[in-house]
């Protein structure tokens, strides 16, 4: 069995760490990671709970393929109720942390309550203890990791930590592991901060942590899978060479790159901040921004960017800590820090991205919130006096300054840390917030790509590209080409993507494999690792069950079908330029059909029949 079958329950109030067996009945119905942890969360907490209340729980969870030789088998998720959205939050991260947790012998760690003083959890195989973190409070993620490794004299410890953003409850604070991989969205880091939990440090050396059901079949299936990834143009060439940044110019040319808080749909500076630009030698020092690509645990794609900034860039003068290499901008970050606010200085984006990693906050929500602030500033609703400096669209200095202020909660950074929805509401224009369920859009415009618009509106964790990536059919032609402006067939395609994604997110694998892998590539890997019959049909049912379970949680939290919406800008203001010129979102056509294919009522509630069929 590829589960360790062990759950670590940590009560932060009493300080107790107890072991309990994994509920294997649930594992059969929800597989692992996203699905299984959500099952635990919905069973143990009231969906109406205040995300920052000690009654909210937070679960770190691996999947059955985490810590295996399956390509990309190193993922873990953090599941809790999100403070940004008030909905289910499930943030997925790579790096090495997840595999280490598995090697220590744990499928998941459930945190309950809140600690009276700052603590961190140290897991060494079967032993878990809460240790005083007073000396770590106020430190960045990077300082925290270095301090923990040094104190325990073990450089092989893996650390997932919050930075000052999580401590200060920035509503989109992230949990960062291995310096630059993040459970990034929905503010899971702020929940961790509210529990006074600074970090989780793990060292796993057990040889008997788990057992593969059929090793021979496992190697056959995973080796076949690796060949498919290597031979595929996206996973074999595009992603290793350009990272997700391969998309910047593609999406811009297609006319689906939201620009300046979605006022525009194409960015004149896209070329300067895209994947190709990261390879180009800078005129200033003759070196490229990108040093190399890097992989997460077990990943044979290696899309990660490792960048080094221009040492002479204004943002890092006299700041030697940013002159070395670190995690460079991915597409979503480059878009949010750049196009969303009209900034086209790649070095400035890299710096802001370093800060996001260093202090643990989501560059998508941060950048998009800055974009909204810039629009409020241009409309005269926000003044220089309130912000402390000028903030027109395209202000590199303004964006950089806000990145420095947000995690520490200083000055106007405190307001930026609330996210776009609360910012725009505070200044009387909630309609200008480019969000769904209060979470900021990522880097695709819902007018330019109709299916993505529907995906955003219906995503269980608020606007998100990783819940049903309709860019695949609408741009890349995976698994089939669908025209960006078409609506026909999109609700059914989205449902299929959402259900498949829920399976992948519950397996321990990375969603990016699905550029090349279909369910028929993934199924044999799960089958060989896990005992039981894991047919494709059953896996899709698991995915659908997870989706509906998340939906029920959100309904219980007080969200309704009315929250499956898009901002008025996307519904009413036509795209100004490019191939999608004139387009607005046709959500009103697609949403009723989506509810129908989901087996939900016209109000967006799963019918009794659907509930029965899925056993939710």
């Amino acid at each position, binding site marked *: 069995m590829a589960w360790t079958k062990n759950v670590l329950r940590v009560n932060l109030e009493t300080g107790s760490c107890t072991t309990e067996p994994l509920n294997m009945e649930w594992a059969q119905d929800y597989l692992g990671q996203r699905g299984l942890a959500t099952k635990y969360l919905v069973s143990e907490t009231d969906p109406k709970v205040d995300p920052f209340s000690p009654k909210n729980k937070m679960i770190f969870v691996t999947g059955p393929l985490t810590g295996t030789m399956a390509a990309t088998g190193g993922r873990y998720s953090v599941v809790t109720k999100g403070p940004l959205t008030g909905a289910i939050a499930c943030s997925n991260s790579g790096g090495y942390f997840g595999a280490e947790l598995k090697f220590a012998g744990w499928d998941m760690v459930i945190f309950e309550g809140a600690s009276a003083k700052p603590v961190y959890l140290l897991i060494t195989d079967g032993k878990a203890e809460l240790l005083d973190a007073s000396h770590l409070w106020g430190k960045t993620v990077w300082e925290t990791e270095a301090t923990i490794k040094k104190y325990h004299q073990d450089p092989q410890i893996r650390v997932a930590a919050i930075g000052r953003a999580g401590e200060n409850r920035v509503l989109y604070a992230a949990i960062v592991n291995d310096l630059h991989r993040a459970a990034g969205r929905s503010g899971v880091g702020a929940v961790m901060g509210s529990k006074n939990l600074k970090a989780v440090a793990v*060292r796993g050396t057990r040889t008997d942590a788990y057992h593969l059901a059929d090793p021979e079949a496992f190697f056959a299936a995973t080796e076949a899978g690796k060949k498919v990834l290597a031979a595929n143009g996206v996973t074999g060439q595009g992603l290793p060479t350009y990272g997700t940044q391969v998309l910047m110019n593609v999406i811009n040319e297609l006319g689906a790159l939201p620009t300046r808080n979605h006022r525009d749909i194409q960015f004149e500076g896209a070329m300067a901040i895209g994947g190709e630009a990261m390879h180009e030698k800078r005129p200033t020092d003759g070196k490229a921004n990108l*040093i*190399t690509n890097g992989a997460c645990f*077990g990943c044979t794609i290696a899309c990660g960017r490792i960048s080094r900034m221009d040492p002479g860039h204004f943002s890092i003068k006299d700041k030697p800590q940013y002159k070395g290499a670190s995690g460079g901008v991915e597409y979503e970050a480059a878009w949010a820090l750049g196009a969303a606010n009209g900034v086209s200085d790649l070095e400035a984006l890299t710096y802001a991205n370093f800060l996001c990693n260093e202090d643990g906050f989501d560059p998508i929500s941060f950048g998009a919130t800055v974009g909204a602030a810039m629009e409020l500033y241009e409309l005269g609703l926000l003044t220089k006096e309130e912000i402390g400096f000028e903030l027109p669209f395209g202000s590199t200095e303004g964006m950089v300054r806000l990145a420095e202020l947000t995690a520490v909660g200083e000055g106007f950074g405190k307001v930026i840390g609330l996210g776009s929805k609360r910012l725009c509401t505070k200044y009387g224009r909630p309609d200008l917030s480019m969000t769904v369920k209060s979470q900021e859009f990522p880097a695709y415009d819902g007018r330019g790509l109709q299916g993505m618009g529907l995906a955003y509106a219906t995503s269980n964790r608020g606007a998100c590209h990783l819940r049903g990536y309709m860019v695949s059919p609408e741009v890349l032609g995976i698994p089939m080409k669908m025209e960006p402006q078409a609506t026909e067939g999109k609700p059914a395609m989205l449902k299929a993507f959402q259900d498949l994604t829920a399976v992948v997110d519950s397996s321990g694998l990375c969603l990016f494999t699905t550029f090349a892998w279909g369910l028929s590539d993934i199924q044999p890997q799960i089958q060989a690792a896990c005992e039981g019959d894991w047919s494709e049909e059953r896996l899709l049912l698991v995915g659908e069950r997870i989706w509906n379970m998340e939906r029920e949680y959100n309904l219980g939290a007080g969200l309704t079908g009315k929250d499956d919406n898009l901002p008025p800008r996307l519904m009413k203001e036509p795209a100004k330029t490019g191939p999608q010129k004139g387009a607005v979102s046709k959500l009103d056509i697609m949403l009723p059909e989506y509810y129908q294919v989901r087996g939900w009522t016209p109000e967006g509630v799963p019918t009794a029949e659907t509930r029965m069929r899925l056993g939710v």
Partner: protein
Amino acid sequence: MQKSLHIDPNKCTGCLQCEMACAWENYRTFTIAKSRIKVFSFHHEGRFVPYTCTQCDEAWCMTACPVDAIQLDPVTGAKIVLEPTCVGCKVCTIACPFGTINYVAQTGKVQKCDLCDGAPACAKACPTAAITYVDADWTGLDKMRQWAGKTDTNPATV
């Protein structure tokens, strides 16, 4: 022909497939703590470097061992730890200048790379050919080829 593990750090992405393959080969686990090859991340330089035993001809671990528990495999050239003979004195771990032979508390013996009897699992698992198993006499061949490619052999341009 003898072969040698050849490591090109420039090609390494830090995925640790090699470490899992090594751990599996020797312990039937993917727990990388058991791997005999280690990938080091020099984060601020943006470099990943796999490192393991280079099978010294004049192997100090072998020379230092007081009970002759480290033997030469004449076919592969690997210096192999004979577990039943090893007494876990750890003198070899002191003698090795490179740190590539280490004690294993679980078994009370030392372990080092043994080239998997001539089919190294790490090289097989490496997705980027950062680790290869090549003719021991020609580990420089790739570098030579790269430099050769830069040689200007067209007299017309002189």
